[in-house]
């Protein structure tokens, strides 16, 4: 029994790292624009199917699809931004409708192109088991974990150390003050959306290699990203990482101890509990507005 629990925790941590990438993409776009991109999960899904497409058509490792995914998903993210940016009135509400609709279109385009079957990588290399002490994982899971950590490190560096990254943080923190620093807020939002697209691209490819995808699960990624953001409170990358791992572990434990049918429900229950008892998030104890 204890081995099963440990194994579930281990698997939860591995998949949680990819949830963190998805959540960070949602958060970075939200931070600058104060807009929730309901199509974010579908962007991740598109990247996953790009990996599927490249793998089945070329026989290459799915990770070889990342450049194509970057172009497709990053480009789509940019287009999405340009559409949102045209909204003049009630931007918060109208952008929800717009991005929700774009999500539906992406899902159905994928359904049309690839049918509703469940897909996962066929690469024997990625599917091979690897044992770490008493725990087991697929190579794909370990690689996805490493890739996620690497990308999060990159994002951390970008936000802290580059001028564009600092502009993204400045606009998120105080839009009016950012303008006075010589920062063009709209251009910065554009950059943030593309960065979110980059995160979604890699997350999608990673999810394809470690788990199964089908056209209907796009919105589930958005919901997961949302739950993680609530768990973490708005802000820090380590907070999002821990929140994502908590969600991954909760889901994995639910599958192990109860049933996989309850997986999504467990995430939602966690979400409600945190909202109820810790409304500022697990790590966002400070309320800092004003």
């Amino acid at each position, binding site marked *: 029994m204890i081995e099963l629990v440990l194994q579930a925790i281990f698997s939860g941590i591995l998949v949680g790292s990819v949830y963190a990438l998805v959540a960070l993409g949602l958060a970075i776009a939200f931070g600058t624009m104060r807009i929730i991109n309901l199509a974010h999960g579908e962007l991740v899904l598109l990247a996953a199917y790009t990996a599927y497409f490249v793998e089945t058509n070329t026989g290459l490792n799915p990770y070889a699809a990342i450049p194509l995914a970057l172009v497709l998903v990053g480009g789509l993210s940019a287009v999405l931004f340009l559409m949102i940016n045209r909204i003049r009135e009630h931007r918060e509400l109208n952008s929800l409708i717009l991005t929700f609709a774009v999500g539906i279109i992406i899902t159905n385009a994928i359904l049309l192109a690839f049918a509703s079957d469940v897909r996962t990588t066929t690469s024997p290399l990625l599917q091979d088991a690897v044992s770490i002490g008493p725990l087991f994982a697929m190579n794909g899971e370990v690689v996805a974990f490493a890739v996620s950590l690497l990308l999060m490190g990159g994002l951390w560096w970008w936000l802290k150390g580059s*001028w564009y990254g*600092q*502009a993204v*943080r*400045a606009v998120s*923190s*105080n839009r*009016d*003050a*950012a*303008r*006075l*620093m*010589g*920062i*063009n807020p709209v251009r910065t939002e554009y950059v943030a959306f593309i960065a979110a697209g980059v995160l979604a691209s890699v997350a999608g490819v990673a999810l394809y290699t470690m788990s199964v995808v089908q056209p209907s699960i796009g919105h589930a990624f958005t919901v997961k990203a949302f739950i993680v953001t609530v768990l973490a409170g708005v*802000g820090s990358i380590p907070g999002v990482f821990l929140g994502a791992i908590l969600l991954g572990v909760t889901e994995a434990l639910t599958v192990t101890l109860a049933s996989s049918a309850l997986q999504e429900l467990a995430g939602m229950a966690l979400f409600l509990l945190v909202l109820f008892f810790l409304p500022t998030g697990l790590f966002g104890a400070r309320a*800092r507005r004003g």
Partner: protein
Amino acid sequence: MLEIRHLRSGYGRVTVLWDVSLTFREGTLTTIVGPNGAGKTTLLKTLAGLIPYEGDIRLGGEPLRGKAWDLAERGIILVPEGRMVFRDMSVEENLSLGAYPRRCRAAFASNLERVYSLFPRLKERHGQLAGSLSGGEAQMLAIGRGLMSMPRILLIDEPSLGLAPVIVKEVFDIIRRLKEEAITIVLVEQNTHIAVGVADDVHLMRSGRVLLSEPAANVDLDRLHDLYLAREAQSA
């Protein structure tokens, strides 16, 4: 030299500034005083590119138009009312954002050194979140951040707002030092006494117009206060 001719601006259909003409001489400190609602802050916001305007603004003969971020590139730097520091970023990150305009990036390190020598308190607190600073420290950070942008003209809006008198004195000591370094400064201030004390030129605004323009040396504070407070009588 910054010249304003027949400036008219406001918010949407509400006109705040009516036909304002002013000249700010290079390397001097100009103080603008006036009661609430006189349009002082609107004037600074207009100069900084936050509000569209009609009329003519020229910096060294060149027309000055554009968005706030373009004007920041050209050296028009506003230290806004209420400081507007990036509360969830550290003191040093705030200063580093001051150096965001491209022309300021190369000199970042030496400017940072200079700001830290002007404000040793900021150096002590360089890793602290700006949101945790006291009002006086936040004001120093806002001014320091403005200096990081290597201003050709530094616009400072109500630096004494909400500060204890002893802190106000400290802030104005710094402003006096900046003046000695020949930075062109436009200062908007409610605290007439101290603001006229540091100024070269003084303008009094009321109801969106300039009522009085004098060299600071000639300003008679009693007369200034009479004009300042005459609002009720005028509008009646």
